């Protein structure tokens, strides 16, 4: 049941068109209107094969579905396929049935037989596996496009994730992949390609938002016999996973875009630098490159035009700093991934001292469609200064975790309360962190901020790669600032002293504050250090490392003050400053807290208020988590 590509040689655009025509029906079927699936001539069951769903054992689900299809003799009518990530990770493993796109959530191997007999033979969708915002309600949402998680989304970079089999080049071609390159090499000059990217207004999705077209133009202008095209797939922001999803779900988009970049700037060789923590992405990217080589879409004389381009994969080894482009280059060269001073910029002297163009995965994912549909098309989406869409990895204290792709300018509120489904457990939204360890937080009063590059920078945060961590009222902002600083301090490569020493000193101050030993002068010292580190560090890691602290101070200064003056952690997270007790008025005496207490320090009589023995309390907070009456206070 796994689809095998034909892998016959593609020598011309006509060959490419013939391959697309031969497989077009599969894509059309997955975009067709709903029909009762017992009557459908052909049915595709698409099973998510992303890392998230695979962790939920979606491979077992797929095998069980294949088995159920065979057991019912449906193998001529029903195909079970592995596709890339649907983005709705919380609901995994996800299975989507086409035509019509019935969206099944949390489908496990034991559900496979029922799904096949009920929906594909009897024509009745399995209600209990359909999505419901509230699982206790009977009303369910069947079609993927009616699902509140997908309403308001505009999937461009993710358009093939969950639509095609990423391990089959035929399906990629059937969904128009490689036609951007075909158009460029047969109808456009390299200058026209650069011009189109410039016109699209596309800005780098890796963090800083530098105009992609300008980067391409610079790399093109520099004359050299050898140039390189790099793809930064070292998605290091802890909390961002859109690049992984694109690589896992639509690897041909990236390979095609890199070939386009090679054509535009005059490079013959590309490298994808992928973090080794992404084994599925590496596997699929490897398959895609091999298949593209085999059919002749990579290699010499591509599509009979004389254009030559090839790609190799280079693995990272766990160093956040390698997301910085000069450090990434050092790592590809096999060295310690330490940044180099700029200038010279990589466009002038990059990998092995040759002009080098480096873009992030999501940036590349947008390029093939820009070439196909024109720069004006892309520029018409989003806002004036931030064109197109942005994928956000929404995680943390939010109901619907997953990947959300929206037009630039969509407000934070729409993302969190629309697709995100709000904050679970009736807790209050406190802040959202964008830009990871280089970014900052956005407080509740700024929920209506449009998400685009410049507005976020103006707020003291940044777009970053699109990690969006939602934090509820139980999050301590001082602790979060400390968490990020600990991260950057550990990941500092040690080359320049402002970053190496400065982040260490800042972390010590934050440790002091979270342990209740800080003073008001320490807060001033944090700000002073932050200013110095930002202005004197060598690379982007150090220059942005203080941002989470500065923005937490900007919007939640009173929490820092509570820690140092009142020796109190308002959120009850910092253990040294927290003491749990039971409010006798609110306690119903159910005893649940006592049963869940790991140190057995809660005692009492059923139906009478319980008491916490502070001397033995480990301050784990279990009691507060389990109490249904809010009687455990701190």
């Amino acid at each position, binding site marked *: 049941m796994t689809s095998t590509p034909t892998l016959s040689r593609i020598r011309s655009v006509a060959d490419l068109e013939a391959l697309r025509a031969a497989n077009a029906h599969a894509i059309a079927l997955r975009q067709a209107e709903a029909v009762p699936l017992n009557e459908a001539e052909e049915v595709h069951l698409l099973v998510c094969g992303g*890392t*998230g769903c*695979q*962790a*939920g*054992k979606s491979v*077992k689900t797929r095998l069980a579905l294949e088995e159920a299809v065979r057991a019912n003799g449906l193998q001529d009518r029903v195909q079970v396929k592995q596709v890339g990530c649907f983005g709705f*990770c*919380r609901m*995994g493993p996800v299975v989507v049935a086409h035509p019509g796109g019935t969206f099944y959530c949390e489908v*496990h*191997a*034991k559900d496979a037989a029922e799904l096949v007999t009920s929906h594909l033979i009897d024509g009745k969708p399995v209600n209990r596996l359909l999505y419901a915002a509230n699982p206790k309600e009977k009303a369910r949402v069947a079609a993927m496009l009616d699902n509140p998680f997908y309403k308001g989304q505009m999937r461009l970079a993710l358009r093939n994730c969950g639509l095609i089999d990423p391990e089959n080049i035929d399906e990629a071609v059937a969904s128009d992949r490689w036609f951007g390159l075909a158009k460029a090499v047969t109808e456009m000059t390299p200058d026209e390609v650069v011009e189109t990217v410039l016109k699209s207004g596309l800005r780098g999705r890796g963090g800083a938002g530098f105009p992609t077209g300008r980067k391409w133009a610079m790399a093109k202008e520099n004359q050299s016999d050898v140039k390189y095209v790099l793809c930064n797939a070292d*998605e*290091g*922001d*802890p*909390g*961002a*996973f859109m690049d*992984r999803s694109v690589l896992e779900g639509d690897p041909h988009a990236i390979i095609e875009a890199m070939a386009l970049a090679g054509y535009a700037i005059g490079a013959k060789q590309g490298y994808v630098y992928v973090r*080794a*923590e*992404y*084994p599925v992405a590496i596997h699929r990217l490897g398959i895609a490159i091999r298949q593209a080589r085999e059919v002749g879409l990579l290699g010499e004389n591509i599509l009979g035009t004389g254009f030559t381009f090839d790609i190799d994969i*280079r*693995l*990272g*080894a*766990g*160093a*956040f700093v390698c997301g910085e482009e000069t450090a990434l280059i050092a*790592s*590809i*060269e*096999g*060295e*310690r*991934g*330490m940044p180099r001073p700029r200038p010279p910029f990589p466009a002038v002297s990059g990998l*092995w001292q040759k002009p080098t163009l480096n873009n992030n995965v999501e940036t590349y994912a947008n390029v093939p469609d820009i070439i196909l549909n024109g720069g004006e098309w892309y520029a018409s989406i989003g806002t004036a200064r931030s064109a197109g869409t942005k994928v956000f*990895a929404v*995680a*943390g*204290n939010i109901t619907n*975790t*997953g990947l959300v792709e929206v037009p630039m300018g969509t407000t934070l509120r729409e993302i969190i309360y629309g697709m995100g489904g709000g904050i679970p457990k009736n807790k209050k939204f406190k802040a959202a*962190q964008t830009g*990871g360890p280089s970014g900052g937080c956005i407080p509740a009063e700024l929920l209506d901020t449009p998400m685009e590059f410049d507005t976020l920078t103006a707020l003291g945060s940044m777009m970053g790669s699109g*990690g969006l*961590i939602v*934090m509820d009222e139980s*999050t301590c902002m001082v602790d*979060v600032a400390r*968490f*990020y600083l600990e*991260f950057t301090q550990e*990941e500092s*490569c040690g080359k320049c002293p402002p970053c190496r020493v400065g982040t260490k000193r800042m972390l010590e101050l934050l440790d002091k504050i979270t342990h209740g030993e800080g003073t008001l002068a320490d807060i001033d010292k944090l700000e002073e250090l932050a200013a110095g580190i930002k202005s004197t560090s060598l690379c982007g890691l150090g220059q942005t490392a203080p941002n989470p602290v500065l923005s937490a101070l900007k919007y939640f200064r009173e929490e820092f003050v509570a820690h140092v003056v009142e020796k109190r952690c308002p959120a009850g997270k910092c253990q040294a400053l927290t003491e749990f007790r039971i409010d006798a008025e609110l306690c119903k005496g159910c005893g649940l807290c006592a049963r869940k207490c790991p140190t057995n320090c809660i005692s009492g009589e059923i139906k009478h208020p319980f008491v916490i023995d502070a001397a033995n309390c480990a301050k*784990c907070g279990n009691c507060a988590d389990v109490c249904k009456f809010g009687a455990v206070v701190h």
Partner: protein
Amino acid sequence: MTCTCSHGIAAEDPRNVELDSFMVTARTTPGSLISVLHKAQQLFGYLPEEVLNRVATGLQIPPSEVYGVVTFYNLFNTEPVGKYPISVCMGTACYVQGADRVLAKLESELEIKPGQVTEDKMFSLEVCRCIGACGLAPVITIGGEVHGKLSEHDVPKLLAEIRQQALAESEAKVPVAVGSEHE
């Protein structure tokens, strides 16, 4: 050093043979040191001194350079890991969902700290930065397999399952997949 397993890997050990043949092609590829180290770690489980020396000789570069690269990157281990290496994700999404409590529970259950191996060499513990499964936070990986949506209360059961699986494997002498799925 109480561990002696880092010494005495026979020259004709098939892992050495495989590493050497990998290095024959790697030697002509510029910047291949990191991929060679990945290969070596995959073969030996970690990178003891003699393996690093072998890589230096094989690629004709100074051992200091090899050591410098190995110690720069988090994923390379110079100490042995357990049969089931446990990696606790401390990415932001996992952290705000209580990964610190999961880690504390693992530390107390296994009686080791990150970077250490249990006495029976069954488990080793480490902390990693985001494996990209943020939708399932908090997550840990055990021997490469991802376990998501965990709380500290799930830890004892999970460890017991792995121990049981290891026991079944050693009794059967052949790898047996023990169902670890509990709905």
